[in-house]
């Protein structure tokens, strides 16, 4: 089909879809008028039932924890897929090829970059941990904190160079972190069943409202998510970066720093 025919087809479909969309929008409750009963109900009962302040975390880790379990494993599937697809190209045995490239000196980075990264790195890690640990009281949680932690490892790359980064961050460890986090989450679901409770039912003490250590089992699940996400995203960055390295180019720091 020529591009023009394609756009014509799209326009034709739009002729039918637009009135349909308009009637649906007209049928919806006006924006900002009301919220659904389900959400209202959760806002009403969860602070007391689970001693947590952050309703979104309560939904993600308790009320609808199964969704998050699926989501975590979706991430795991995507990252496993990425690894298969990228490594299949390079060959499984050569995962560390760029890490050990003989005969190449490490070009020193400017002092300022190294210093900045060495200061910012731990700060980012600290911030990531803060976001992870305060899942039940403030915005954020395992997922957001995990992504921040993973981005923190990129600072090692900027500061210490590619070889230093690859030396510090090893693929098998990341697999272990990712798989271990997902396993921890899944076991959080299964373990309560041993005591006769339902899958992912809270069996731990709930803690005090507005305290970071509130929510019982949620905290463990949150930790599992953080591990899985941090490991997974780091693995993702690692495999992507490796992809840019195959051509024989000088090891230049900060080339990806945009």
């Amino acid at each position: 089909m020529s591009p023009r025919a394609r756009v014509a087809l799209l326009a034709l479909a739009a002729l039918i879809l637009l009135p349909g969309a308009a009637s649906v929008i007209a049928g919806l409750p006006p924006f900002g008028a009301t919220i659904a009963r389900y959400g209202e109900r959760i806002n009403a009962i969860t602070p007391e039932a689970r001693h947590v302040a952050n309703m979104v975390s309560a939904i993600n880790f308790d009320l609808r924890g199964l969704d998050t379990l699926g989501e975590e494993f979706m991430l795991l599937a995507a990252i496993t897929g990425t690894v298969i697809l990228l490594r299949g190209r390079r060959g499984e045995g050569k995962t560390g090829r760029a890490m050990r490239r003989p005969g190449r000196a490490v070009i020193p980075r400017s002092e300022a970059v190294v210093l900045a990264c060495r200061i910012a790195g731990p700060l980012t890690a600290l911030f990531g941990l803060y976001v992870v640990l305060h899942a039940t009281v403030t915005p954020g949680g395992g997922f957001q904190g995990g992504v921040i932690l993973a981005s923190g490892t990129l600072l090692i790359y900027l500061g210490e160079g590619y070889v230093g980064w690859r030396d510090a961050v090893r693929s098998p460890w990341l697999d272990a972190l990712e798989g271990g986090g997902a396993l921890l989450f899944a076991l959080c679901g299964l373990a309560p069943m041993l005591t006769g409770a339902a899958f992912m039912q809270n069996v731990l003490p709930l803690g005090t409202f507005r305290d970071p250590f509130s929510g019982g089992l949620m905290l463990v699940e949150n930790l599992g998510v953080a591990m899985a996400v941090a490991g997974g995203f780091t693995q993702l960055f690692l495999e992507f970066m490796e992809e840019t390295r195959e051509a024989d180019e000088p090891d230049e720091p900060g080339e990806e720093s945009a």
Partner: protein
Amino acid sequence: MTAFPAVLLPLPVAIPLVVCAAMLATAHLLPGRVPDILATLAALGVAILSAFIAAHAADGPLVYWFGGWEPRDGVHLGIGFSVDEASGWVAAFIGLLYALTFVFAWGFFGRTHGHFQILMLLFLAAMVGFCFTRDMFNLFVWFEVMSVAAFALTAYHLEESALSGAINFTVINSLAGFLMLGGIGLIYAQTGTLDFEGIAAAVARGGRDPVVAGAFCLVAAALMIKGAIVPFQFWLADAHAVAPSPVSVIFSGSMVSLGLFGLAKVSAVVFAGSDQVQHGLPVLLTALGSFTALLGGWMALLQRHLKRMLAFSTISHAGIMLTGIGALSADGTGGMLVYVVGHGLVKGALFMVAGILLATRASIDEIALRGLGRGIGPAGIAMAIAGLLLCGLPIGVLDQGTRGVQGALAQQGHGIALAAGAIGAALTGAAVLRAAGRIFLGLGPDSGDEAGAPSEDEREKANRPLWLMLAPCCALLVLDVGLPAHLIEHALPRAASAFMHRPAVDTVAEGPGWLPWMSVLAALAGAAYGLLRDRLPAFVVRSVGATQSAPTRALEALHSGLIGDYAAWLAVGVAIIVAMLALA
């Protein structure tokens, strides 16, 4: 506290998840065959558990509330699983299909640290979750997990075709996910809940409502994209043809039909109370289904690349399943559910034969393989039997499903859909039988229009003994033929009504007995024409060829492989669904 059999409901999902997380965590420590063994055992475990659950669900659906969040004051707070008999058996079938596929792929993916098995187990868990859940958003989550695992598996070969096929697959199915999520958002805003039953109750109360109809359009479009219904079918041929053969077994055997399974569940359970949807559905589904059955069958007949041929035949059979849903009766839906299982068994066996040819004869091209199959007779017999079953040979599970679907269609006077289904089945059967004759008997020196069809060199590792690949293939066929018919006959009326949340019926209608035989005869005639073309009088060949070539070229051009075209057709498809519902 939940009573005993219901307590097991989370396990068929949780077991594969735990096994694959553990496998990933220890990926670099596991010795060679351990992932194979673990994966096979996990899949078998899922099959057995699901079967056990299904058997106990005969008296009524089992319900399980995650986190112990049972509904309070009529508000569904958490996520529930609700397993009726039919869903349980479908899950058991899927587990078994995976177990046999793992045996078939034994050692095939040896050097990947079990990554292949990890993805497959995730795929399995997602499918079982998809069958069991009673929550709209949870359905979406499993839908997406399925998709993501499938995307990665498709491109495993890293050939150019595999990669671009995987990209098309990913983009179109991602759009399906977005449509579905949009639909879920609409229905949630309107009904204030995500639980199937909760939504159903609210929809029934609401009367004619454009938002509900719009939500149904979006969700139905998403599930039809997964189910490869015209005009959403384009991705399937691209993806199934290039995926590794064990993956294609799963794709064609369960993923596509599961999309339609979801559609059947959603339209029978969630939107049962919407008159607009229920009025619009029969015409919409039977029309699209008939068209799909014919187009898929016709395209299958024109292929020379075996996996692509089977992919189009899957499209055709998906169309037949859709007509079964379109009858909106316990017979039709029950027949469709049996059809899902029967089709999965037969199509899985066929893709395994294709895999055997890839591994032992290093080609997948029907014309290039002519006569080369002589050394592996058992595979040829399996292929011929599967071909006959596919076009409707009246024995086995697939036939029982066909009769159910045809009975429902005949009863409700959908004559065109009935004919289209029979013709579609005959066409795909003819394609498979022709290929079997050409490859294993060396017939058909004169290749007709097939020769112009796309094909590509491909090979798979020949590191497995023939019997190891043949055994699961034969096991599937034996299951299809050997499963006692009276067991299904006995359970079907009850299971189908429970699946649709309707009062039980006593018996299900059956279609005319001669119709399957007509399909078989037509398939044999079609295959014979393809194989014996050189011995027929010239004027016959020329006149048939003249009617074939032009539409063939047009259809092949339509399946252009361009993602832009597919996106445009997707919009057209959604527009068709919207228009049909608006007119209802």
